[in-house]
């Protein structure tokens, strides 16, 4: 084959590609469709990951502090929360109990506010926006500081908008929150404005309900877990997509097949790490690097999981570690009632 033949074929390919891809694509409101995907994905990530805590390496007290807090005030035994109406928040979600909330009728008002007095840095903000117009967004500010943005949909769902049970004092202080002093969450629904640095909306009314609320943590053994689904399988778990540039560094345990605590994983640390925890049952997973806890995943549903990253090795959250060094990952599990319920996959780049 000569270069001329190759060139001729290449030219033919260019022409074929141009001709065929110039066909008429179906008309879709791509921005709205992508926004809905973002919202769904964000909910999946936050539903599981908000209960997770990435602890500074070298700070064992960080995790112990969280555990101490989880073991805090004993709450009365509770039963699983009933199904809530679209646009309202469940009493329990992601390891927390709803302490305060505000709901607006979106057909009458496009904004609302919630004032609360925090007594702990361990809190998450939940939101739900159930309106007919799925092009609309719900944005929230805490004490006037930009905080979150979530897409709306007719069924709304319920998700976590921000915060964690990880005692993120600085996170909240940056939003002007002080313990024992009132803080205010203001929220607005509308159509997203483009070209803005922060997510902002042009107010609009629609039919439905919108809620924002604050959750405080509940000790795991007193959290109202749902019963095991009748169609549950040992390999059921959340599917996560990691960044395409990340490759799998190693794995500990395998859902339904091998116990995560039976073996360690020693790897050369890459530049960035993503730790992915997949579980098939409720429980708490702690991932250690060289004996120090670095990732804490609390799962309160059947077949969920947590995703950590990506986090730069050697930076704040993984301080004390260096790219290129050998490190050993180990895993500890608590509260799981199923065998081989945890799988930890480490990704890096």
């Amino acid at each position, binding site marked *: *084959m000569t270069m001329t*033949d*190759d060139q*001729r*074929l*290449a030219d*033919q*390919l*260019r*022409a*074929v*590609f*141009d*001709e*065929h*891809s*110039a*066909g008429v*694509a*179906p008309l*879709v409101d*791509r*921005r709205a*469709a*992508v926004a809905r*995907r*973002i919202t769904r*994905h*964000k909910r999946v990530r936050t539903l599981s990951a908000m209960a997770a805590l990435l602890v500074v390496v070298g700070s064992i007290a960080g995790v112990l502090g969280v555990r101490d807090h989880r073991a805090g005030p004993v709450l009365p035994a509770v039963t699983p929360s009933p199904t809530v109406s679209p646009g309202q928040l469940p009493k329990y979600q992601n390891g927390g109990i709803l302490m305060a909330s505000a709901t607006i009728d979106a057909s009458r008002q496009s904004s609302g506010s919630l004032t609360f007095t925090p007594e702990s840095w361990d809190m998450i903000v939940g939101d739900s926006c159930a309106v007919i117009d799925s092009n609309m967004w719900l944005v929230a500010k805490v004490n006037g500081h*930009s*905080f*979150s*943005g979530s897409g709306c949909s007719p069924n709304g769902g319920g998700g976590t908008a921000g915060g964690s049970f990880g005692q993120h004092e600085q996170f909240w202080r940056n939003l002007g929150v002080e313990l024992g002093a009132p803080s205010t969450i203001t929220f607005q629904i509308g159509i*997203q404005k*483009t*070209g*803005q*640095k*922060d*997510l902002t909306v042009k107010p609009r009314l629609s039919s439905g309900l919108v809620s924002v609320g604050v959750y405080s943590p509940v000790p795991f053994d007193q959290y109202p877990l749902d019963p095991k689904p009748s169609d549950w399988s040992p390999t059921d778990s959340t599917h996560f*997509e990691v*960044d*395409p*540039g990340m490759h799998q560094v190693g794995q500990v345990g395998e859902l339904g097949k091998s116990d995560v605590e039976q073996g360690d994983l020693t790897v050369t640390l890459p530049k960035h790490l993503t730790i992915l925890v997949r579980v098939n049952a409720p429980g708490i997973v702690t991932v250690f690097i060289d004996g120090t806890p670095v990732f804490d995943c609390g799962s309160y549903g059947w077949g969920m999981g947590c995703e950590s990253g990506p986090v730069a090795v050697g930076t704040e959250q993984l301080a004390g570690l260096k790219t290129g060094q050998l490190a050993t990952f180990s895993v500890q599990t608590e509260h799981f009632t199923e065998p081989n319920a945890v799988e930890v996959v480490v990704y890096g780049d």
Partner: protein
Amino acid sequence: MADRTGYDEFVVTRSPRLLRVAYLLTRDWGEAEDLLQTALMKAWFAWPRLDDAPEAYVRKIIATTFVSWRRRLWTREVTHGDLPDAAIADGTATVDERSRLWPALGRLPSRQRAVLVLRFFEDMTEAQVAETLGCSIGTVKSQTSKALAKLRADTAIGGPDVASAQVAFEGGVTA
């Protein structure tokens, strides 16, 4: 809140071109739209880290997601029941050659198709294709060479070779 300035504008201005890339890979407008939206969603989360090259990032997600989708499908691949007509050189006119190229492209393995789309539709260098697909330049060269050889054998463009046409078919199982 993370800075996502420019994301909406990017979606509006660059989507048409990226959709064409996705279509050339998937050969189905519905799948292409799904693939593009998947990539745009991932880009939204990564946007604050993308600096000045968001299009390269999205194109990379499109290509790698397409290849990984196909890999998954590969495990339950369905083979053709009938052999295609053997390629015969008959001095076919250019238009006829193009009409044979399109179905032949559909019979290429996913990675080879991705290499050709990036090389000849996006006019990327071998190094850029390697970066996009996360493989070596040598792999890009070999995949390109194999893909072109299969297309020649399958379409008789650049000279017929019945023996290699058979090889091309066997390697061209579609997912």
